[in-house]
């Protein structure tokens, strides 16, 4: 009887020892995966900031060009306004019988029109916005910026959203693995207690350790499936 009990006890101890070894190995694996996920999160976020820097660089160049366009457009529009304004006064001067003034103003108006046309040549005319009467009233700056971004995107990463989404995913994964690591340690704790307990209580500890471990494995499988099916 005592020999049988001794053998049973030895077998129990062997099984628990094996389980402790397995759980310890899993802990090491999970810890390494958690560290990798944390590292990936940091790297993805860093890449996101780099993409933002690229974007600002591209936008900076675009805004400089917009400033040039605005300047040329202002020259164009003001001189055009002056031209029409001067023409009103030509009419008025000539109506009041001042032909010399009318002549001088006509010359001036011609100059204003020339300057307006000259300024127009420096505008990226594809981005001009016209009103209902066909008069240009401004520049389509949002589209200008977008077009420049589209061109730049061929050569460099300027979209940071995906990087930050990745960073969030990796961070969540790292924290999730870190949390399960804690639970693995609980399992290890119960298995260790099972190993050192001589009474029937050892079965309770064994059951607790094994159930926790199985629960974790089930959780990994379910989350893996959710992730694989793209539901997460």
């Amino acid at each position, binding site marked *: 009887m005592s020999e049988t009990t001794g053998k049973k006890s030895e077998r129990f101890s062997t099984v628990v020892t094996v389980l402790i070894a397995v759980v310890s190995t899993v802990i090491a694996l999970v*810890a390494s995966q*958690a560290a990798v996920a*944390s590292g990936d*999160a*940091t790297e993805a*976020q*860093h890449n*996101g*900031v780099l993409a*933002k*820097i690229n974007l*600002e660089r591209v*936008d*900076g160049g675009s*805004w*400089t060009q*917009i*400033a040039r366009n*605005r*300047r040329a457009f*202002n020259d164009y*529009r*003001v001189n055009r*306004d*002056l031209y029409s*304004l*001067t023409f009103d*006064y030509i009419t*008025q*001067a000539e109506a*009041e019988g*001042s032909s010399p*003034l009318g002549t001088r103003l006509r010359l001036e108006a011609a100059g204003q029109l020339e300057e307006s046309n000259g300024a127009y040549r420096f505008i990226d005319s594809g981005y001009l916005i016209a009103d209902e009467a066909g008069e240009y009233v401004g520049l389509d700056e949002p589209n200008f910026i977008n077009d420049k971004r589209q061109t730049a995107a061929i050569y460099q990463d300027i979209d*940071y959203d995906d990087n930050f989404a990745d*960073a969030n995913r990796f*961070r969540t994964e*790292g*924290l999730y693995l*870190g*949390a399960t*690591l*804690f639970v*693995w*340690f*609980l399992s*290890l*704790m119960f298995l*260790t*207690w099972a190993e*050192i*307990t001589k009474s029937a209580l050892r079965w309770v500890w064994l059951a607790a350790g094994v159930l926790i471990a199985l629960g974790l494995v089930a959780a990994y499988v379910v989350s893996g499936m959710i992730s694989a099916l793209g539901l997460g």
Partner: protein
Amino acid sequence: MSAETEPERRDLFKNSVIVMLTLVSVFAALVTFLQNYASLSSSDLAQRSSFSAVDATGLYFRSGLTAAQGTDVLQRYQEFVQRSVRADTKARALRMGGEAALAAEYDLEADRWRQAADRVATSDPLLAEFGQDLAWYNEELSRDAYREEEKEHTLLEQSRVWSSKANGYVAVLSSLSVALFLAGLSLTLSSRLRYLLALSALGLTLACGAWVLAILFSPVPVVPDEAIERFVEGRIQYTLATSRGEDGSGSLDAFDAALELAPNYGRALFYRSLANTDSTLLAKHLDTQQAIDDARRAIELGNHTSPVYGNLGWLYYLNGQYRSALEHTERALEMSGDDCYLAFNHGLIRLALSQPEAARDAYTVAIDCAQRESSDAVFNYYMDVGVTDLVELAAARPDLGDTLNPAIERLKEALAQVRLYGMLQDAEVEAKFGSISFGGAVDSGDIVQDLASEFPQSATIVYAQLTFENVKPESRWLTRWVLDGEEYLSRAYDSWIYGESGTTWISLYNYGGLTSGTYTLDVFVEGQLVTSGQVTVLPGDLPPMTYFSSTGVGVTISYPTTWNVTDLADNEVSVVAARNPASADFFGVTAWVASTGTDEDVFQLFDLYLDALEQDREGFSAEAREAFTLAERDGWLNYYEYTNASGELIQGALSGVVDADSLLTYIVVIEARDAEWDEQVEMFNVMLERMTIDQ
């Protein structure tokens, strides 16, 4: 009995330690999770802070470009306004010569350019919404950038706290590993030492538990968006105030509001401290103690930067706490050795502590810094501000006696040497100068007359008498007039032409009238200060004025510095006019060839002008002409009034005189809105008195 009990005890001890080991391991796993969480949070916040920094940089860039565009439009607007003014001035001048038809054409021109200006005025927010206030416009454009910059700072601050938590957890983990080691070691021993080791392990674990709780519940500073909004508003108000030369007290309410929402908002504390910082010792009026408390709190909250320490050093100086001032200024200097203002403050504080040797070394560093790091203009600024601070310290601390004079002379001479030679250059000078006396006139023997140390606001010239000996002809010398701490006039000369010994004079003039204030005159020979003196122009009702000499018209007129001048001479008319851009104030002078050389010429031109006004303007009436002295000649004056195109009642006066030498008739037209006429009359009289005929 005892032999059986011992193994049982050992088993109990062993099992207890193993249980403890497992519990410590689980606890360590929990701490590892917390450390990982803190570390990830810190990294996340740091990267988000970097993102905001990049975003803020882009926003600053964009606001700069938009502001530049606004400046372009403003420039164009002012050009159109000036064209309108020029045409209007010419129209008025032509009317004086009876050229009513031609004047009407220029009226049309003035109207055209005014309309063009009005159209431009609506095309940019700088003109349409910000009243041409470029500083205000710039600040409003920068609002988004400021907001993003604040996010950058607050996120970084949070990142620091999370990083500190992560580091704390790492330290806990290290301690737990020691606990595990001790517990494990206890299992290998059979002596009673094992109990001690096990208990040590248990104690260390319990301490780690308390430590983790402390870390876990230590707060992470959160600054609500509303607090950031308030701070940004305060920052804008503070920057605007300083750009206008005012103190920052107007921004205090906004900073108070920000701090009410986030009491541990370090940057708001720093900025409130700045807003409560006086720039000068003698004019101290802000809450210095509050500023000190805020700066100290900002440092406690982790804002260990050179601006905070530097400003705190200055605040302690203002408060007379020189030891603390020195400590904090030196701390700031350690961080930012190239920030020259700190080096100057360092020297100043050393002198306040009666440490002249250390102060000399500090000023050597300061002057070197200013020369190395600054443009000539900023170098001059540093020297002048340095002198002003020293002069104020001397006034506030009479007990320091003459100990400040060497430093004052040194700063002045450094400026003079750089001005004369382009570098610091010490030289032995044998020349001796006596003290300077000031006067309002000079006689034929070059002796200054009407000696005084104070002059009325009407003064246009002040003479300074110099007495000297042993001055070599090849000496390079420089005179420098400083008005209330800022350079007013400086002249450098390559040689001395007044003999080895004797007297001579130099003068300070402004035909528009000397600006009120206290002038310090310094005379340098070979970069060494040889004499110095002070003279005061008393305040009065007149605004700061300047002058303009028109070669076309042949007169010099004086006018307020805020007015604009139009000077034109062509085959139709010669006119010079000064006008207030903010009102209808007008002061114009025309010159006409006299036909008789008598007063009849004046009367004829008066009549032509008044007739033209009567014809063109509503509500015209004129008084009888009266005798009047103009440009020190006997002339005439004729008041009139009319209603302009805008429906405003305009008061005016014509003044005229014939210059017998040149056979030219000069006509002056003065106009102002009826409501402003009385308050402007005194200034118009001064402008008439100061007008001179040059040809």
